[in-house]
């Protein structure tokens, strides 16, 4: 969550939230915040929010991500209608939830269910950064755990796409326990022999990274995605250390042995198809 906000602030400079998670694209044509080139909104949408000029990957909503990855019409949502409960009575949490639900049309920062990827059926969970920064709370934890169990019981490969600023501290210790919840579920799944593929997108931090997002057989990441435990801003504040260029990028994580491959968003589906083709 601390990460979430630091990230969010950076973001709001470049990408005001919209339902699709797309940035300054609501006019017919706009300027890429990264390379400054003009982009037509339709081009950007057609490329799932990847700049046609500099290939910068803008945030992508869970629904668009599912459209990107699954064979058309194959996705069936599961576990809809699970809603966060403000058990701590945390100042403004209910309002925040209302606002996020209204703005995104989502129950919470996740969509999950089953779908086909190149004809192969998988259990799929996708986090959505536009819902309170994709922060992990009880609903994300519960739906991830149920998706893992679904994969186990139906003997399906498991694919989870993460985008999370970190913890949703409005839920206090409950969200901490979601790390344990998703881990116990995964620890059972991996006793079987179906693969778990994790896809890390910008940004993935905190409790998500420190639990299910990194516990996969294969870890893929989108170019330039910022991935880590604690956000760079917080680290600089606490350690007073200047961090190197590219710190915590997907490329940095690959160089440090934490990520298997950097995959361009527009080839992500093809990569998943290849990968799943090799595996049970």
């Amino acid at each position, binding site marked *: 969550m601390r990460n979430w906000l630091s990230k969010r602030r950076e973001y709001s400079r470049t990408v005001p939230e919209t339902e699709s998670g797309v940035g300054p694209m609501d006019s017919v044509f706009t300027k890429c915040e990264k390379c400054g080139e003009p982009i037509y909104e339709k081009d950007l949408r057609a490329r799932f929010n990847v700049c046609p000029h500099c290939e910068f990957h803008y945030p992508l909503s869970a629904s668009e991500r599912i459209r990107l990855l699954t064979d058309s019409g194959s996705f069936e949502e599961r576990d809809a209608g699970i809603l966060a409960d403000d058990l701590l009575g945390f100042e403004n949490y209910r309002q925040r939830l209302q606002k996020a639900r209204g703005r995104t049309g989502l129950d919470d920062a996740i969509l999950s269910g089953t779908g086909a990827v190149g004809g192969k059926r998988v259990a799929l969970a996708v986090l959505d950064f536009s819902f309170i920064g994709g922060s992990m709370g009880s609903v994300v934890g519960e739906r991830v755990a149920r998706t893992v169990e679904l994969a186990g019981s139906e003997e399906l490969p498991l694919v989870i796409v993460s985008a999370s600023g970190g913890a949703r501290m409005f839920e206090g210790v409950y969200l*901490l326990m979601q790390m344990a919840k998703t881990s116990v579920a995964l620890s*059972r799944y991996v006793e079987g022999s179906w693969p778990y593929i994790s896809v890390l997108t910008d940004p993935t931090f905190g409790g998500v990274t420190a*639990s299910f997002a990194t516990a996969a057989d294969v870890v893929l990441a989108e170019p330039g995605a910022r991935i880590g435990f*604690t956000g760079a801003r917080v680290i600089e504040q606490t350690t007073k250390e200047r961090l190197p260029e590219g710190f915590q990028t997907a490329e940095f994580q690959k160089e440090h042995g934490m990520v298997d491959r950097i995959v361009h968003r527009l080839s992500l589906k093809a990569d998943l198809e290849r990968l799943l083709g090799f595996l049970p």
Partner: protein
Amino acid sequence: MILDFERPIKDFEDRITELRRLAGPSEELRGEISRLEEALDAARRRIYSNLTPYQRVQVARHPERPNFRAYRDALADDFYELSGDRVFGDDPAVRGGLARIGDHNVVLLGHDKGTDVNSRVKGNFGMAHPEGYRKVKRFYELAARFGLPVVVLVDTPGAFAGRGAEERGQAWAISDDLMTLARIPVPVISVIIGEGCSGGALAMCATDYVGMLENSYLSVIAPEACASIIFRDPSRAAEAAEALKVTAADMKGRGIIDEIIPEPLGGAHNDPQVTIEAVGQGLNRVLNGLSETDPEKLRQARYERYRRIGAHATENGQVG
């Protein structure tokens, strides 16, 4: 060190000492002294029976509070420390090894906050690096290999946030501990003896039994950090501690922990001996209970326990 809210207590203590000095052998001030002693006792009771969450956080951080070393030395008849993650280094922020507690051979580990400036710095104030979490994983697996119960004493402000920690996969190391904890077929029990903050604490307390000392706390984030984010004002840490519901009582009330271990009046630092004995009795009781349990039943119960916890409701209102 005296915490602000302990000031009145300190004042009574000082005056009593002073009077004793004046009185010397004479009987004169006896009455006055005993009156003050009663006032002191009353003040202690008043203050410590009404600690706010943030005051408890301060007690949990008290430098004289008994820490891993004190428990290890008092409760383990023998402790054979092991070290190293076998891939990069040895992190003194967490220590562990083979120990005998009561009639039980166990793997004992915990965060080491140290006892003086040097050891505190060496142990990075209990904030572990990935090396530390990988050493912890080694301990979990060693225990599983030899069928020994694991006893963890949790006392950390959180996993360390720094460049090296990120470069070497802090998140990966913590996740790996959680996956290992979920898997090992031996009893795993933990007591939060001070601070239990962030995933750095969870990696060592997602266990079959979790006890909390009365004034310890468990939180996803330090109240100060939470305040500076939510309220944009670190000085509102007390409110944040309140809102985050971090106390042992909160955790017990929500069924997240098994037991609150009471502290002596004035907090653990006021009587380490009594505190340590209380923890020791708890550990022995739990070890006796769990050491009989069938490993598969243990894993099953652990699964169900952590699979359940959440703050969500399905649309028809029933909590999932």
